[in-house]
């Protein structure tokens, strides 16, 4: 049973560039959430997708956008990169219906470095 998979694992960009991160949820899961974890910090919620729509969003600017595909996989896009966007980006999946209690299953993350 495949868990949550993310790609790429590491990437380096320069200020002003754009980046796309990808996530495949755990088998059977239909909801994908994205978190940003800056160095030494706890994960901060970016947004959540279900049925290909953004369902809730944290306190992140519009430079952060996302998408969910019919197969439940998801992308996180960040435009006009800033140095402060350097972080570990975590994807988490869950199941909306059927007794969901809030538990999330996380991928290994994509480490973004902005120079």
């Amino acid at each position, binding site marked *: 049973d495949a868990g949550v998979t993310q790609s790429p694992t590491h990437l380096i960009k320069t200020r002003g560039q754009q980046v796309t991160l990808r996530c495949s949820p755990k088998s059977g899961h239909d909801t994908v959430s994205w*978190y940003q974890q800056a160095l030494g910090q706890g994960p901060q*919620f970016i947004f959540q997708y279900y049925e290909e729509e953004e369902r809730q969003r*944290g306190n992140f600017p519009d430079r952060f956008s996302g998408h969910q595909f019919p197969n439940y996989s998801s992308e996180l896009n960040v435009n006009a990169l800033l140095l402060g966007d350097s972080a570990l980006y*975590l994807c988490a999946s869950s199941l909306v219906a059927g007794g969901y209690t809030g538990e999330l299953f996380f991928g290994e993350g994509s*480490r973004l470095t902005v120079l």
Partner: protein
Amino acid sequence: AQSVAQPEDQVNVAEGNPLTVKCTYSVSGNPYLFWYVQYPNRGLQFLLKYITGDNLVKGSYGFEAEFNKSQTSFHLKKPSALVSDSALYFCAVRDIKNTGFQKLVFGTGTRLLVSP
């Protein structure tokens, strides 16, 4: 808004000794509380959760957590620490919108260092 606080940046314990990692919460309604562990350059791994029922929750790798409503705490415990338990530990609380969609709100994390 739902929140959790982890008052200790780091906890040091000797191998074989009991360990406690502290977490306090602030919620409206009934709390759904979680502990996750993160090893270096890895994602978060689920340890345990409290939804309702018994105040002592048992989880993975010998960890347990004690829910205390009067003290609004949810401390993570283990009777005998291992060097391999050294990692970053996060407490989290469920935040549910009136739409029914949920997310987890995490604390700032506590680094556990177990010395041989």
